[in-house]
């Protein structure tokens, strides 16, 4: 089983780690990338929001949006970066604008500046953009990407298209037309509608929005092509999806929901990683009559068994994809040694 995960890391060129929050996704992503480096590959891990000490261990100072080398005792190479949504977006705008003036106009616009925080899916979108940028750079054999803790798998599968859909908004396109054409094209209902928006949120908001769409004019095509590229990359057979969960019911339910949506999008789950499993301490029968000692062992046996049952449905749904189990570790993982320990559970010795 675990050999398969090892092969995924050894052969694929992109691994996307997905799952809900608090299930150890970042740690899993980092462990997979370390294993690739141990297999002699040039690997890069893109993390979204690592716990501070893990970030320190990976040499991420919190500001870097470009890959930094992680020193380690392996034949390959390992780079890590922490996604900075805003600077990724800024770089994208600067690169694809027709002129420096256009880029400046966009970067200064209030709607644009709010976008990184507010447009749902911007973080997912930038994660995918970063993935695309790294994948096309040719610098890596494998890119492991940790995704934002999204409920909905479509949020990132669909993320690249969101911006183009946003830019295509018909109502605001109409607003940008010259006055005479505008009067012809815009129905009475639409005018009422726009007046309503102005009334509720204030005219300046609408004016800002119009300025935003003006600023972006002509760039939609480039964004659209790029969105298609990213989609193809995600659908490619060289891309693997690793679903990460904990055995708690709510996390497993979210993972199932996720698996369903990936399936609908025609994407297979290539492996399931279950973190934070309680150990069962062998299978010798727990004796009665030994007070707290016996009770403690029975408690762990009982939860371990129920946890195992919890993800059986999910495991059989994604079969023949392998399931890797990582027990509750004695402490938090915040250094390469800790990642090595997780790796032993994911890949065997």
């Amino acid at each position, binding site marked *: 089983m675990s050999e398969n995960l090892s092969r995924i890391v050894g052969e694929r060129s992109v691994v996307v780690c997905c799952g*809900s*929050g*608090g*299930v150890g996704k970042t740690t899993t992503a980092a462990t997979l990338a370390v294993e690739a480096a141990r297999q002699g590959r040039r690997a890069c891990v893109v993390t979204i*929001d690592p716990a501070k*000490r893990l970030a320190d261990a990976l040499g991420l100072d919190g500001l870097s949006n470009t890959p930094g080398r992680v020193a380690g005792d392996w034949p390959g190479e390992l780079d890590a970066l922490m996604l900075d949504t805003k600077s990724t977006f800024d770089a994208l705008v600067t690169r694809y604008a027709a002129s420096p003036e256009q880029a400046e106009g966009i970067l200064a616009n209030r*709607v644009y500046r*709010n976008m990184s925080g*507010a*447009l*749902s899916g911007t973080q997912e979108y930038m994660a995918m953009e970063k993935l695309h940028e790294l994948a096309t750079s040719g610098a890596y054999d494998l890119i492991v990407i940790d995704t934002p*803790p999204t*409920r909905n798998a479509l949020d990132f599968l669909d993320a690249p298209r969101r911006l183009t859909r*946003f830019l295509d*908004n*018909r*109502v*605001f396109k109409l607003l940008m037309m010259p006055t005479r054409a505008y009067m012809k094209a815009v129905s009475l*209902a639409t005018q*009422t*509608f726009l007046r*309503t*928006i102005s*009334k*509720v*949120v*204030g005219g300046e908001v609408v004016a*800002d*929005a119009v300025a935003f769409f003006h600023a972006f004019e002509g760039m939609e095509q480039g964004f659209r092509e790029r969105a298609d590229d990213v989609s193809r990359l995600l659908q490619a057979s060289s891309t693997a999806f690793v679903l990460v969960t904990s*055995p*708690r*019911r*709510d*996390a497993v*339910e979210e993972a199932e929901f996720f698996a369903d949506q990936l399936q609908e999008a025609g994407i297979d789950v290539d492996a399931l990683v279950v973190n934070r499993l309680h*150990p069962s*301490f*062998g299978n*010798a029968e*727990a*004796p009665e*009559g*030994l*007070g*707290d*000692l*016996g009770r*403690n*062992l029975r*408690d*762990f046996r*009982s*939860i371990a068994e*129920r*946890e195992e049952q*919890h993800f059986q449905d999910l495991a059989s749904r994604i079969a023949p994809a392998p399931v890797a189990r990582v027990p*509750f570790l*004695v*402490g*938090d993982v915040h250094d390469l040694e800790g990642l090595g320990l997780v790796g032993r559970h994911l890949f065997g010795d």
Partner: protein
Amino acid sequence: MDVSQFCSATRLFIVAGKGGVGKTTVTATIAQMAADAALTALIIEVEGKSGIGNVFGRRDQLTYEEVDLSAAGGSGRGRVRGRTLTPDDALLEYLVEHGMKRVSKRLASSGALDVVSTAVPGIKDILVLGKVKALERANAADLLVLDAPAAGHAVTFLTSAKGLLDAARVGPIRTQAQDVVDLLADPDRCQVVLVTLPEETPVNEVIETAYKLEDQVGIKLGPLVINGVYPPLDGLDADPIDVARQAGVTLSADQARSLRDAAAFRSHRQELQAEQLRRLDEALPLPQIRLPFLFTPEVGPAELSVLAEAMAEQVARLP
């Protein structure tokens, strides 16, 4: 402190914490504790998908229409009700209430809401919190328990009203933002219950969130709830072979090893937890409510009543 007094100190309880720490469980526990104290609690879920139904033994998801979540044939005590309140729901209701029913459909379908909410970040949060405020004002229940979005977003969720006051200078949205700011800043109407686990990363995050909420929102912080604390167990240090001999039980080598390993694991985790609890004590001057780890991967009605009782006992001991 008397439990019903605690539950009535503010009408609104906002439960916030990082993903995976058991925020939904704690939301349900507060509501159940209130119901056990003969109060009526309304759970409000804002993300449109949560396991809150499961906790009360129901298979269906909450809906925009309130449902009664209490066990059938309650014993004359209080009730727990539950409903969702997503931004889309809140927007629709807002438009209808402001006489804009006609455009409401178009607004939702044209994507213009996406544009507007990008231009005015936080507008969705304001719509939700504005509706919560209306429920609070209408005395919709003895207490409202709001299952807030996962932390990180929790801070944004609660600061958006202030941000909006700067952005929108006029209009009904500004009025609504002002109402929400007033509600959040009023310690007699609203408090935040932060939830965490006794583990390093969640502890770091809850400390950070607590200070941000206090500095940026000026919101009253209620007790800190720490989920999944191992109940103390004596006798973990004893040698299984000695204990077995005294009890007249014969152990195989495998059994002795299993017992010893399990005891060592638990002792070690208890020590780690104790260390994190100490850190919380030092970093946050908030009373703590510690909920026991229940050795089950799921919380259903039976577990919920254990948790509600544990919470009530500790609330009773609060000054």
